[in-house]
């Protein structure tokens, strides 16, 4: 007696295809696209999904979680400072208090719990998919993203001339780490500028990252380490509290905007243009 039910190869193929196609069809037009599946991007997606927002995370790697699997110096213990441990409580990840206000937990445990919590909340994750460009709408507002398979991008152009596809959305969250890829795309068009690191007076870098999290361009919210590069904040030590709370702040800012209609480019409201995208 076989253990598994019989299924032919073609049925397996059709199951993969129809599941994928259903998801892609749904998320071709969504409320929020998060670029980058690290801790800040996952946190933003989870909080948004918990509030019933349609959200998809685009991750270029096969694995999700970015640097959240590993702490400093390839040692897989994650540190967080209060109050970020409350997020671990929420996602059911155990931790220990190492010293007053400083908490430690195994990276694989925290990361896998956060990924699971994000998906449990209803967010869709599209991995092995790279952000390629932005979709520009009236008044230069960002209205979506252009994506392609990571393997296509990884191969020489002469071999893979594969056109990308686009997703439309109300808001893009740039959670791509130091690269700030979405802001970079705007920069190439002269629409935005990353200040880069340094040149600031800083004593509270984690606070700075969280407080700078928010709309950085009409239609684009920056979160996590992308905030550092966009605003010129110095990088932080191997501690993850700011990444989680920056993701949470990004979701809060997105919710505010979605509730009142996403603000279009400056002046659009005054001109009587609709602020919410037709879907």
């Amino acid at each position, binding site marked *: 007696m076989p253990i598994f039910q019989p299924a032919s190869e073609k049925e397996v193929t059709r199951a993969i295809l129809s599941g994928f196609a259903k998801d892609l069809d749904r998320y071709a037009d969504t409320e929020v696209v998060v670029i980058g599946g690290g801790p800040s991007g996952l946190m933003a997606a989870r909080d948004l999904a918990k509030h019933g927002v349609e959200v998809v995370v685009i991750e270029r790697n096969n694995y999700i979680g970015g640097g959240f699997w590993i702490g400093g110096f390839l040692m897989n213990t994650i540190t967080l400072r209060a109050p970020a441990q409350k997020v671990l409580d929420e996602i059911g990840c155990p931790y220990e208090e190492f010293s007053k206000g400083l908490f430690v937990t195994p990276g694989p445990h925290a990361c896998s719990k956060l990924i699971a919590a994000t998906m449990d909340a209803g967010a869709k994750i599209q991995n092995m998919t790279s952000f390629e460009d932005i979709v520009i709408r009236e008044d230069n507002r960002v209205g979506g993203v252009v994506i392609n398979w990571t393997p296509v991008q990884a191969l020489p152009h002469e071999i893979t001339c594969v056109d990308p596809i686009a997703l439309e959305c109300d808001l893009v969250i740039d959670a791509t780490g130091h690269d700030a890829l979405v802001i970079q795309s705007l920069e190439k068009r002269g629409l935005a*500028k990353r200040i880069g690191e340094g040149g600031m*007076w800083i004593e509270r870098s984690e606070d700075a990252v969280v407080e700078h999290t928010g709309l950085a361009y009409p239609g684009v919210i920056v979160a996590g380490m992308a905030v550092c590069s966009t605003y010129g904040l110095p990088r932080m030590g191997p501690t993850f509290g700011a990444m989680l709370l920056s993701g949470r702040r990004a979701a809060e800012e997105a919710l505010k905007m979605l509730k009142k209609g996403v603000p279009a480019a400056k002046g659009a409201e005054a001109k009587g243009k609709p602020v919410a995208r037709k879907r």
Partner: protein
Amino acid sequence: MDLRRVYLYKDPSAATLDLAAVAAHVRQVLGVPTSVRKEFLRHHPVADLDETAARIAATRVTDLSRPLVPMDPLPPALALFERRLLETSERRVPGVLYDGFRLQGILRSVLPRAERTLAVAHVAFTSRLPGTFDDADRRYHARAVVLGFPSIVSTSGLVEAPAKPRGFYAAKRSLRIDSADARYEALKQEYAGRFLDWDDPRLTQVAKGYALQAVLHQVTGEPFCDDADCVLFNAHWQEEMLHAQVESGLLCARHRKVAEALRGGRRTRPR
């Protein structure tokens, strides 16, 4: 011109700042009617919040080693950040240095004509950290106070600008830590009490002295006092500041006479 009125403007991000107590102190010491207003840009609302946000964003210092040349074009992210801060002033502005004189110019520009007179002293408390460029060493320095019209007293500057004890920095260097490192808080504990920290209960006491500095600068034209026991002393070290403002908490004899003259309705300059 006689000083007729002092206005202190709130910083909603400073939980331990009792501005009513500061106002009472200024009133008592100088005998000038002193009252508390909402934060500066709420009390003097601007017509175009986006434009004001962009003007403030343009005062952000991005290179400490050069006098500020505002970015052109201004990155939209900076203006959007300032816009959020203007809407949520109870949030502290972290890790940003602003050109103090340019920031002061923006505040001055929104004052109503009737109050643009040296008979009125405006002292804007803010969480924004102002800096001024020093030609001597060719770099920006964070400031606790930018005296002028209006004067700016920075609640972040009171924490960040005067240097902490020398040993603090030496230990920070030897540990190779930054402020995001958990050991930073432990290090601060070692030096607890020797510098003003965020939400420090001594903030109101310190603010009293800086409010007097701002008002007396407008009256006398003198920015600071050389007497380390006087609340008008220009402290470069936290320990100097805490000595002048908390341990002493008094004007020196010379500035007491100025205050007495002011209370008596006489205009005078210190001798």
